[in-house]
């Protein structure tokens, strides 16, 4: 096991990783910008190094400062958290060159799975189902035309290097193909410096389903069930749950096993997620792989009783996974709400400010992953996540009731600070959410429904 792990991140995930380190008996080093000098992880960690000004380009993304802090403090590993440098093969490579273990996959593996075309090719070979479409990049408009005709409209054109909802266009009919093919390529070139695109069938309505897995360096891999993240707005997830109520036991096992096989086939090590679209007939199609721990990992932890961050650290240290597939049956239902400092009435604009009141909920099976405390300044420099509220219950209905109860207990206030708590409560109360029949366009419909009701009332 490592002696000391440097956490190259901030906010709730930095604290989450530091807690895992403490329980493993590993020393934790926090790095922080001047805006985060009073942060919870700086107090909690065994050591802390101020690495730069608030701007991320000179602090949390500034590789020389982070490596410098690791070398100075004698850290033998770096945990990148999510976001920032977590999926940067260049950073992983520098860690390796400096003799520091990067807690994640090898740089070459990270690069492979990060390229969507390569990932699709590799996972299709491992037996994961793909949507009808191309595995190879589409190089000419003629080719694009032939493929679209073959798989049928609507189709979606996606940048090979794309991500986060950028660099993709839905083509409803043939007449739009030429224009959208050109603009998607141009956007891909401008944003991702790679104009390569591929084409696949576009599903109008589907559920975002993802499989959590962890692989060690001894050829073992375990999947930790799936998460449904269909409650999202513009590709930003708001509510996640585990398991998905739309997956049969058989599909779960088949796809879980194929996901592990696919990950092991490329030499993947560490925690990772395979993203799928689940159509209304219950068919899964592989979308992409995320080579990092994800924000919503706690819901999987709650239904499997496994600390995923600890497993991640363990396998990075060269140890075997502490659990095998038989040890992780799914139990009960877990839901996570992302409490953001955002104003849903003003298009979810971030609302930075000092938290005068911060009283997290408690009670049975209620977990709050947060770095906030009364007096904490929600900074305009970083993301607006205040807390992840996670509840567990024996079934989905009771989990929703418990979540609503916990949301009513959560007190957050400060000058100018608005949160997504009221929005979450309205979603939980919606009959469609209650029924579980939620697809990725749910939030959009929900919001126009609310807007229409408000207009009718005035």
């Amino acid at each position, binding site marked *: 096991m490592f002696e000391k792990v440097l956490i190259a991140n901030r906010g709730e995930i930095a604290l989450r990783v530091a807690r895992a380190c403490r329980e493993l008996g590993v020393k934790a080093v926090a790095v922080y910008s*001047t805006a985060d000098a009073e942060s919870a992880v700086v107090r909690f960690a065994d050591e802390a190094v*101020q690495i730069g000004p608030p701007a991320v380009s000179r*602090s949390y993304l500034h590789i*020389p*400062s982070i490596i410098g802090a690791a070398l100075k403090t004698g850290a033998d590993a770096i945990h990148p958290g999510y976001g920032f440098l977590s999926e940067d093969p260049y950073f992983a490579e520098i860690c390796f060159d400096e003799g520091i273990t990067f807690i994640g996959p090898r740089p070459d593996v990270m690069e492979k799975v990060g390229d969507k075309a390569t990932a699709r090719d590799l996972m299709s070979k491992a037996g994961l189902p793909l949507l009808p479409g191309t595995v190879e990049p589409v190089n000419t408009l003629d080719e694009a035309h032939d493929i679209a005709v073959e798989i049928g409209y609507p189709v979606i054109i996606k940048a090979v290097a794309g991500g986060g909802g950028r660099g993709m266009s839905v083509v409803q009919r043939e007449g739009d193909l030429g224009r959208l093919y050109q603009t998607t390529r141009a956007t891909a070139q401008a944003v991702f410096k790679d104009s390569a695109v591929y084409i696949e069938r576009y599903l109008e309505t589907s559920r975002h389903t993802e499989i959590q897995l962890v692989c060690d360096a001894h050829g073992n891999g375990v999947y930790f069930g799936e998460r449904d993240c269909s409650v999202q707005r513009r590709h930003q997830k708001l509510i996640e749950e585990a398991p998905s109520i739309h997956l049969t036991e058989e599909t779960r096992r088949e796809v879980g096993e194929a996901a592990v096989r696919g990950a092991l086939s490329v030499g993947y090590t560490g925690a990772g997620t395979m993203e799928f679209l689940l159509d209304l007939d219950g068919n899964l199609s592989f979308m992409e792989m995320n080579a990092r721990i994800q924000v919503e990992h706690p819901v999987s932890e709650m239904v499997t009783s496994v600390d995923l961050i600890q497993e991640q650290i363990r396998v990075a240290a060269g140890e075997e996974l502490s659990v095998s597939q038989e040890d992780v049956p799914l139990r009960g239902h877990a839901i996570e709400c992302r409490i953001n400092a955002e104003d849903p009435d003003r298009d979810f604009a971030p609302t930075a400010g000092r938290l005068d009141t911060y009283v997290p909920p408690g009670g049975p099976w209620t977990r709050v992953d947060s770095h906030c405390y009364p007096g904490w300044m929600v900074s305009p420099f970083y993301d607006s996540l205040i807390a992840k509220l996670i509840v567990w219950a024996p079934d989905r209905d009771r989990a929703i009731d418990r979540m609503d109860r916990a949301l009513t207990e959560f007190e957050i206030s400060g000058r100018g600070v608005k949160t997504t708590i009221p929005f979450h409560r309205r979603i939980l109360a919606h009959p469609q959410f209650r029924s579980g029949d939620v697809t990725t366009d749910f939030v959009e419909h929900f919001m126009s429904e609310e807007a229409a009701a408000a207009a009718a009332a005035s």
Partner: protein
Amino acid sequence: MTEPAKRKPADQDLIRAVWDEARDLIKRLEGSTVQRFAVEAGDTRIEIERGIPAGVVASAPAALASAAATGDEAALAAELDSRHPIKAPLVGTFYRASQPGADPFVKEGDAVDAGQTVAIVEAMKLMNQVLADASGTVAEIVAEDGQWVEFEQVLMYLQPPEE
């Protein structure tokens, strides 16, 4: 004694790759205070030394002035006795001279002008100039040569010129 290994003829591809890397680096360093860097692959090494555009110098003091106080007692005392602290612009190793054996950029008692290089901080073999963000006389150099410093750690104090 063994025969020294025969020097391989320079590999054109390698040279080109090193050049590309160097060109890419130069572009990425625009607006930074990195002064000198080297790119190396096999026998091929390119070392670049660059001047710092005036704009960068001007922007540094604002960034430093707006940052929160470190809480360091020495810094507090210094502020009370009106000395001006010069702080580390990034994490790295503090050096008083451009290279081992060279004269230090400044010594105690030297007069410096705003914008003048007073030290370097090395981070991953990149030499970053530390520029004086005010004019004055070097009153005290508190960081040791070769010492590892955090962002905004006080390196030295200037005595402002008499009004």
